């Protein structure tokens, strides 16, 4: 039985948690833009998506959650070794664009979340 706004809030929460985690990974890449031998790290959205899609139904409370990883613990992927003489694989412009887009998606989702919670408040008569 779908509850009003609950599914939307859950989906937004999952996505925003991912965006937040990815922002910290990108911030670490930017901070290490001049560290010799550092390989860039990233969290891929596709990885999160497929791990949520293959979630198996639990028909008994004793069953373990099978298939697919936990979205709250996305996998960190190491990028290729750099071609620069110091072995660093970070392209500062690329990281900045990625960080900007990622933060933009987070802000958009936060705005949608604000809308949904305003709807819920209206529905329970406190709007």
């Amino acid at each position: 039985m779908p509850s009003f706004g609950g599914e939307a809030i859950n989906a937004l929460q999952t996505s925003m948690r991912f965006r937040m985690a990815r922002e910290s990974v990108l911030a670490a890449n930017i901070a290490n833009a001049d560290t010799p031998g550092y390989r860039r790290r990233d969290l891929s959205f596709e990885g999160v998506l497929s791990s949520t899609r293959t979630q198996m139904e639990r028909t008994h409370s004793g069953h373990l959650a099978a298939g697919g990883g936990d979205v709250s613990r996305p996998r960190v992927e190491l990028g290729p070794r750099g071609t620069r003489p110091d072995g660093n694989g970070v392209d500062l412009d690329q990281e900045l664009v990625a960080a900007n887009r990622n933060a933009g998606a987070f802000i958009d989702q936060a705005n949608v979340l604000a809308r949904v919670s305003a709807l819920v408040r209206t529905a329970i008569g406190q709007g």
Partner: protein
Amino acid sequence: MDMSDIMDIATSGLRAQRTRMTVTASNIANAQTTRTEEGGPYRRRDPVFNASRVAQPFASQLEQKLRSVSVSRIAEDPREPVTRYLPHHPDSNEDGYVEFPNVNLVEEQANLVSASRSFQANLLVMAKVKSMSEALLRVGQ
């Protein structure tokens, strides 16, 4: 994992780049220094950056993979000093040559530009995180 972790990482980047600018400033200021405490001319220095863990004990898997940046040491450049024939200079040797620091001003300028660009990139991350937390605060209004 929260906003303050991202701020900590960006701060480590700012601190490291500032150290790099300080070292570069020291190299430029001493480009003509022929006498030092250790003897001989000034030798140019470079900060050595090191990716270090941010994770506290009991941190999540993701947090253990995150790295902030720190300056592990200030290394001296092993390149030989530049010698010039100046027989009347007080620091000249018996053949009349003076050893000048192995500082190349063009190289230092390029280093300075690169450091300030990386500094700005870390500041941009901070500004983005700030607008992220502002958006989050609006949810409750």
